[in-house]
């Protein structure tokens, strides 16, 4: 049995220049003894260790080693992004840590220290309340993975990527790396080399999963890199909602989270993918997310970024089939020391495809939010539509927001709308609310909640409640 030692981390590390977020709910870690540890730094050996530990087929091992080459060959994208990326020390990161590769099917079997973590985060409770299935990843591997029997009986597969590759290679291999090729960007290459964990979901034709499937990603170890890989396939006419949450303790050193998420919606299928990202303020969150929507299919990304030190994430949809629909609803909150560089990509590749992007960002204190978007409609298509709305809210005069919308539309048979706004919470507005009895923090919270309200209403109830709670916590920490 592992001994349980809890390390309580100081609420605000002085050594860490990144402050401001109340991470108290997730700011704890347990001293876990890892049976599998790839050590520090990245080389062929690291990749081979991971592949061997997972007892992978030779093609996966080759895939990983090639990806490592691509990663090493690609330059950092600092020229268009941010110099903060240069502060990631790839040689100091631990790339694989786990206590075993086989997730447990019941919480009773999960080792005490890990179970305790997820209980503290309320995962088993949420599972009982409103979820169709849960996967709980602890550092590199899923510690728990379960799907309700009613759902698995419909033929729905919901396992982690390690199991998916082992037990369903015929489906997995067909789509793996097809939506996001290894060389898409430096971090998708890194993920392809060292990926571990993440979900594999397959929903058979016509099956509509009534409740959401949820994955929870927890980083427990310091100097760790989490590289989950998620692949979701909704077969013809199928429907599924997937939600992910995440937390990490706030260490004084930086942590890297770099996921790759690929979605495939076949003819008439619908996938809704919801993220509430609440990483600690020392986490670099560099994630590539893209979906492929076939004829009349619909992919919707709901993406909320509250935590992390730097997030770079632009969920995209490739609208491959006629009448496919893509949507990104995005909320980003950048507090002191945080940079949320988020946005959306919509690639129209068939007639009568529709895309919608609504992005709202809030910058607090020294926080910086950036919207970066691509909408591409080529000349030979007809009847494509895009709507892009980007609204930014600045809380303080030192807050910063930038918008880089790149909308390329060729041909004259399309309809495109773009609106952008920047507003500021004024002192008058705060005074007005204070005069009604709200504290300054409550007043700011209410302004921010009002700003995102219309968008948050489109989220499932549990998540809009969670979002509101996180905003309240953030604003509480930002004044006084």
């Amino acid at each position, binding site marked *: 049995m592992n001994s349980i030692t809890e390390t309580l981390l100081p609420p605000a590390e002085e050594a860490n220049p990144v402050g401001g977020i109340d991470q108290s709910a997730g700011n704890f870690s347990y001293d876990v003894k890892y049976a599998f540890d790839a050590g520090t730094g990245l080389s062929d050996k690291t990749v081979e260790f991971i592949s061997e530990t997972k007892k992978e087929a030779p093609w996966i091992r080759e895939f990983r080693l090639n990806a490592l080459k691509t990663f090493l060959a690609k330059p950092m994208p600092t020229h268009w992004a941010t110099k903060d990326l240069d502060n990631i020390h790839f040689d100091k990161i631990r790339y694989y840590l786990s206590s075993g590769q086989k997730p447990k099917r019941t919480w009773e079997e999960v080792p005490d220290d890990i179970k305790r973590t997820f209980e503290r985060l309320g995962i088993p409770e949420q599972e009982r309340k409103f979820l169709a299935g849960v996967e709980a990843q602890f550092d590199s591997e899923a510690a728990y993975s379960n799907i309700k029997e009613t759902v698995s009986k419909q033929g729905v597969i919901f396992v982690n990527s390690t199991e998916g590759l082992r037990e369903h290679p015929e489906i997995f291999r067909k789509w793996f790396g097809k939506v996001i090729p290894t060389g898409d960007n430096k971090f998708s290459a890194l993920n392809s080399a060292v990926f571990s964990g993440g979900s594999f979901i397959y929903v058979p034709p016509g099956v509509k999963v009534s409740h959401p499937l949820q994955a929870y990603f927890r980083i427990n170890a310091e100097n760790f890199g989490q590289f989950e890989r998620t692949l979701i396939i909704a077969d013809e006419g199928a429907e599924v909602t997937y939600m992910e949450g995440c937390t990490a303790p706030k260490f004084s050193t930086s942590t890297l989270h770099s996921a790759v998420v690929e979605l495939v919606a076949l003819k008439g299928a619908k996938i809704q993918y919801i993220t509430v990202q609440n990483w600690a303020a020392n986490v670099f969150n560099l994630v590539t997310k893209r979906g492929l929507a076939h004829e009349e299919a619909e992919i919707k990304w709901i993406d909320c970024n509250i935590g992390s030190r730097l997030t770079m994430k632009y969920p995209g949809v490739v609208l491959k089939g006629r009448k496919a629909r893509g949507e990104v609803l995005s909320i980003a909150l950048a507090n002191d020391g945080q940079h949320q560089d988020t946005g959306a990509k919509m690639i129209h590749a068939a007639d009568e495809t529709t895309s919608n992007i609504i992005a709202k960002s809030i910058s607090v204190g020294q926080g910086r939010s950036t919207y970066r978007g691509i909408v591409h409609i080529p000349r030979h298509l007809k009847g494509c539509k895009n709507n892009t709305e980007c609204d930014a809210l600045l809380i303080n005069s030192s807050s910063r927001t930038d918008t880089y919308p790149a909308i390329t539309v060729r041909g004259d048979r399309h309809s495109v709308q773009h609106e952008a706004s920047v*507003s500021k919470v*004024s*002192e*008058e*507005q705060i*005074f*007005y*609310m*204070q*005069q*009604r*009895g*709200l*504290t*300054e923090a*409550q*007043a700011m919270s*209410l*302004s921010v*909640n*009002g*700003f*995102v*309200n*219309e968008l948050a209403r489109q989220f499932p109830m549990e998540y809009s409640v969670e979002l509101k709670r996180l905003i309240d916590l953030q604003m509480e920490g930002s004044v006084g």
Partner: protein
Amino acid sequence: MSQLEIKDLHVAIGDKAIVKGVTLTIRKGEVHAVMGPNGAGKSTLAKAIAGHPDYTITSGDVLLDGRSILEMEPDERARAGLFLAFQYPSEIPGVSIANFLRAARQARLAEGEEIDATDYYKRLYQKMDLLKIDRKFTSRSVNEGFSGGEKKRCEILQLAMIEPLFALMDETDSGLDVDAMKIVSEGVNQLRGPGLGILLITHYQRLLNYIVPDFVHVMVDGRIVKSGDKSLALELDAKGYDFWVKKGEPVAK
């Protein structure tokens, strides 16, 4: 008996003195009207009492039930029982009137105590019926795209729901609009009573045709130059402000 005492209050914006020694006591249940020409410092007086950060109190004191409120934050003053009806209320996009008022009432509960939604809506609808406000009104965002009259209605509804001890009503410029004036006066007449003291700030005597004050004060150049009962308002109407301006100090610009 609850009372709001303003004692020799001096207020400045930056280096500029605006209110130059106002003394006034309002007891619960009384309606005081403060009248005066533009630039006399009437709005400044109200905002300074409410704790607006742009106004500096250079000397004097404001006591609520014998306790100075000058060290209190604006929200603490509000929770202690002070309400300011704004001349130009702010918009709060995306926040419905119902949710805003709920947050305001919630802020008055003890830590950990949660507002009872059923009670809250019952009370809200009661007040809306009293003030003849359409039910749909409260699902709109606070003041967003409101007409002048709607803004007044929203302020009066907030006053009714928050139930302060004292209301400072800054109606300086808005007396021009007859509809707005009626909304304010009907609201005040509905809500006035032994539990509420009102300081009604107005530029135009006309408002006092609808609201009969217990006391009238004439404010010129940062000072109250004359106090009396409601008949003073009529006198003022007949003689105009110039009469006092000439008698008193020149009007500040």
